[in-house]
């Protein structure tokens, strides 16, 4: 079975800006691929080329085995596009939008009407079917846009930042749709700035910066590359450092350990959460006053930062602006509980 998406050595230049610089990408049939990267990394350019809206300067693009540059008209029936900005007609109703698109996708009159109704129901928009899209909320509009992308039951769907600017509830709704699509065998290529989103949805992640791929793998592989779990202890009194380190060593063994002047001790561990109760007890017994005790595991944010760090092919000043790294704070009381992620 051919890859659903196979992109090789893609180059695209806009004036002085090299938007894509030899980008390679493959997505297996039925997989969800997360395309990550800071603003201006070239994510949208890739999607536009795949959706036959833009021609690259050089490179090859195959969608379901069809050459998208030579035969774009054979690719279009296979794909669905949901843009970064909701590309639905504000001045039509939700129903009219979908029925029109179904008609354009060569469905018959009755079939188009049925398909529109079906999608509106599926996306929780049945009640708003007769309302002008202008009156829709951001979340409703995005759902309609997603429905519009699915009108022709595409093999491959491109979602360009589908949840940017959405509230958490709408975002969760979109995530569910993507998961369902994937479960039904549709190949999904998703661009996002939210690493949590990629972590949640994507089977594989490709990190793009300056038009080339700077990292790829499963979310877990990318996280592992940054390093394993670390146990972090923050002392009330930095002066107790030596005593604290002795206790910690006694519990966790001889992992690489570091500390700073503010009384923060960080040590590499395996199975850190399980060690927490004992460590808390021992520290307490040694009369070390602990301000905070946490197991921190690398997030996709860490992987992203590590990959896009200046000096690894990235220009400083690029602003990925992701969420702050998340740490899992576990107090001594709840330490025995294994964490959810």
């Amino acid at each position: 079975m051919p890859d659903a998406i196979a992109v090789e050595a893609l180059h695209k230049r806009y004036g002085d800006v090299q938007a894509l610089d030899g980008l390679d990408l493959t997505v297996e049939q039925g997989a969800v691929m997360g395309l990550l990267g800071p603003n201006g990394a070239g994510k949208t350019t890739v999607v536009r080329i795949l959706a036959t809206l833009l021609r690259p300067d050089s490179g090859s693009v195959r969608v379901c085995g069809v050459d998208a540059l030579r035969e774009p008209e054979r690719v279009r029936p296979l794909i669905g596009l949901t843009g970064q900005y909701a590309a639905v007609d504000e001045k039509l109703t939700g129903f009219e939008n979908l029925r029109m698109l179904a008609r354009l996708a060569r469905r018959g009159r009755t079939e188009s009407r049925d398909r529109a109704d079906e999608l509106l129901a599926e996306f929780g928009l049945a009640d708003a079917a007769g309302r002008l899209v202008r009156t829709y909320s951001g979340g409703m509009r995005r759902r309609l846009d997603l429905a519009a992308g699915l009108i022709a039951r595409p093999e491959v769907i491109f979602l360009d930042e589908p949840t940017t600017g959405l509230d958490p509830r709408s975002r969760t709704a979109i995530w569910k749709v993507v998961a369902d699509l994937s479960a039904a065998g549709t190949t999904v290529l998703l661009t996002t700035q939210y690493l949590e989103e990629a972590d949640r949805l994507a089977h594989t992640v490709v990190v793009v910066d300056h038009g080339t791929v700077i990292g790829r793998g499963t979310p877990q592989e990318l996280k592992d590359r940054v390093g394993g779990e670390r146990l972090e202890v923050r002392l009330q009194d930095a002066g107790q450092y030596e005593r604290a380190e002795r206790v910690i060593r006694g519990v966790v063994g001889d992992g690489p350990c570091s500390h700073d002047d503010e009384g923060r001790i960080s040590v590499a561990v395996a199975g850190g959460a399980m060690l927490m109760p004992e460590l808390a007890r021992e520290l307490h017994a040694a009369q070390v006053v602990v301000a905070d005790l946490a197991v921190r595991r690398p997030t996709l944010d860490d992987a992203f930062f590590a990959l896009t760090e200046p000096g690894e092919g990235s220009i400083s000043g690029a602003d990925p602006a992701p969420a702050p790294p998340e740490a899992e704070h576990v107090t001594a009381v709840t330490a025995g509980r294994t964490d959810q992620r």
Partner: protein
Amino acid sequence: MTTTIRPTEDTSTHKPEGTAHVPRKSDASAMVRHTLTLTWRSLVKLKKQSEQLIDLTLQPILFLVMFVYLFGGAIEGSTHDYLQFVLPGVLVQTVVFASVGTGVGLCTDMSTGVFDRFRSLPISRIAPLTGTVLGDVLRFLVAVASVFVFGTIIGFRFQTNVFAVAAAVGLVMLFAFAFCWVVALLGVTMKQPRSVQGVSFLMMFPLTFGSNLFAKTSTMPGWLQAWVKVNPITAVTNASRGLLTGGPVAHHATVAVIWAFALMVVFIPLTLRQYNRRV
């Protein structure tokens, strides 16, 4: 690499291979169908946007009232005589002004990503353009009806027959269709719908007022006469006058039709090229 296209028509989970509905390039009937679907889109929107309808009907009424009662006496000595003179011109002016909406609409569709969605579908590349323009030309019929109805109410009398009136409408529509492509080029070139509107109106004023639409050419200074005589709006207005109130038609109509086709020959390819290039 083996080429396997999976079908898109099939709704079942088991999808047999090799039956994909792949449109052929030269699928003319599909092009017509898609154009009609998108024309429908324009018309549905017209029905929904009362402000657009009001604009289309009210603007010609305002122009008629203003020119006939404000300037009519001064220009022609009698408001009724002037109404007979100016109405065929207002007809032309109305559709030319209304064509600004075409460019603004196209620009909006391009900037909001609506056209991106269309272009990612297996439809004829030019259908979004032809659909929009065709829908707009039908929209202009509303304005034409407004001119005729209100004109008749305030005393305009057709001095020819039904066929001549139909020919006048047909000619004005043909010119409007051709002129739409000029504005469409602005629409697909410029980034902001608002600038399309501004530039279009800058272009409209010398074209409409700089013609014999409101006053006879013989009353103007020589340099202005030179412009008025080459202005295509003058030819269309003359033909429209002849067809509605009597007078010579053949020459003016020929010139108007030649202009219409010349505009199409130049501006349709330019607009298409720009449209296909801008992504």
